[in-house]
């Protein structure tokens, strides 16, 4: 088996984790989400420290930037920005979320409590222009992220593949740290592709100061989709390989 595993210090990283209210989350569908996603290769070796042992690094390592605007939800309109490091849980592609920023207090609480998103309150905007799609995030009025899709080019939504997320979260019941797998389903109504550009990244804001070094840009996509956030099906022990440390919590 591949000897390269993530080397994240889960105990230390636990200070950024949200508290999850158990694993009995019900599915939720959010209609008409506007999704900006960038893929950028990152330097391999330092990035291993940004994913837990339950994951293998992707070959090559790459980061995923998301800025997603939800026009409607039980908590009103809101937007989320997040940065993930891609890897594999066993044989499945997954992205470990370093940090999420949400501009809606109630939505943020729900995402943290029900799916373990490591949410902080901030300002998040997704701007659609004819030549680009721009995602921005700030914390305490300090810009921490600006990323873009340049040269918008229509493609089929069927050509887009988004991978599931892994959140390090603390279980409310026993206080233990777990990695929660969240694998949304997407029903696409629009797809675009373009060149990715990260104009601004405050790595401290995403807790990855010296470990995340952007390298080779890969692609950017923009999609309009209905997003179904699922029941939580699997949780993992962050400090064990997925083959040994995965627990099924729902069918």
């Amino acid at each position, binding site marked *: *088996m*591949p*000897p390269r595993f993530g080397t994240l210090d889960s105990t230390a990283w636990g200070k950024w984790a949200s508290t999850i209210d158990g694993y009995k989350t019900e599915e939720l569908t959010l209609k008409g989400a506007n999704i900006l996603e960038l*893929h950028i*290769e990152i330097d391999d070796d330092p990035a291993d420290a940004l994913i837990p042992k339950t994951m*293998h*690094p*992707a*070959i*090559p390592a*790459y980061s995923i930037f998301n800025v997603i605007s939800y026009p409607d939800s039980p908590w009103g309109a809101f937007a989320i920005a997040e940065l993930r490091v*891609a890897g*594999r849980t*066993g*044989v*499945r*592609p997954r992205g470990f979320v370093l940090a999420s920023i949400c501009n809606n207090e109630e939505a943020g609480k729900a995402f943290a409590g029900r799916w373990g998103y490591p949410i902080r309150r901030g300002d998040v905007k997704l701007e659609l222009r004819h030549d680009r799609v721009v995602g921005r995030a700030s914390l305490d009025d300090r810009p921490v992220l600006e990323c873009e899709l340049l040269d918008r080019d229509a*493609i*089929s939504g069927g*050509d*887009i*593949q988004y*991978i599931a997320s892994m959140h390090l979260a603390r279980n409310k019941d026993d206080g233990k740290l777990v990695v929660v797998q969240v694998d949304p389903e997407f029903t696409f109504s629009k*797809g675009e*592709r373009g060149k990715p550009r990260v104009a601004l990244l405050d790595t401290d804001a995403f807790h990855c100061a010296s470990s995340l070094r952007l390298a*080779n840009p*890969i*692609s950017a*996509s923009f999609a309009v989709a209905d997003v179904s956030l699922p029941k939580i099906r699997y949780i993992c022990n962050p400090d064990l390989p997925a083959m040994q440390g995965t627990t099924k919590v729902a069918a």
Partner: protein
Amino acid sequence: MKFGLFYEISVPRPWGRETEKTVYDNCLEQVALADSLGFDSVWAVEHHFLEEYSHCPAPELFLTACAMRTKKMRVGHGIVVCVPEFNHPIKIAERTAVLDILSGGRLEVGTGRSATWTELGGFRANPDETKKTWDEFVHCLPKMWTQERFSYQGRSWSMPTRTIVPKPYQKPHPPMWVAVTSPGTEIDAAERGMGSLGLTFGGFAEQEEKVKRYRKIIRNCDPVGEFVNESVSTVNFLYCHEDDAEGVKVGKHLTGVLNYLAAQLLAAREAYPTKSYPSLGLLPSLRRDAAGPGDESGAPEGIAIGNPARITRELKKWEAVGVDRVNFLLNSLETVPQESVLASLRLFAKEVMPHFQGSSDAAAAAAGGH
């Protein structure tokens, strides 16, 4: 039905120079034995940067070594990457011609375009372009092999008039194949009169449909070469053991290790949204099907692991759906000790090959003892 070997050449960490050499030496020893046992062909991939999964970036060199150690086996590119950032078409024409000469006319030329961002990104190749460049390359290669003087003005490459030498030993030229991973590529193969070099397992029903479609379309093809190579091959794992449970157990471990490694790589489609890669390609299919449901023994359907009777039964099913040739992966990360791999080959040749038409030489060879 004919049987061949298929090499990814996977190498476990740590990558000391002796580790790499041992793996290559083991492969060459397997090939030499397989030749004496009556296996028909040996194929080698072209992969780059696929750490542990495949350390085979220069298949023409490995295949040359194979040709020097064998008398009858055909040597096949499975495949040569037809993307200009990877290989210039003139160099492909030249290298393959030399290999055909050195092997005494035993070369098969599989063609393809890579399916991982790990490789495409490494060469800064555009995933949107690979199908188009592959098409240009396969139309040019036969002319470069057969025309005394050749010139070309195309979309992805061009050259003024030159004499490309040497020409292949086989006349008019070596058989050409297409790697079939994405759905519909078997149609590309058929329309161009090329062999279908299956690199995914797929189920029997899926394969039967593909074969039917391929054979129907190739009847009216416009061949890129000077002849039609109507052939369907597929890839499989092989671990043959007298004890069925042991064969299944070791074989499942072997398939599991390779599939696990494959999953760590970055498929083009995962990284770069494009219609050029409608499926995830070789790797996820390997994983899905080889780990799929099986019978009470736990052996996945269609995989050639277990005792000779089980393997014969599974291969008969492939034969029944129209597959002409099965190419076997024998090892991964040296999971199976070399002596066991060699014993598996011997047992297969002795007990399984005689059940298949076209493998009669094998039975005789195996009966001679090795």
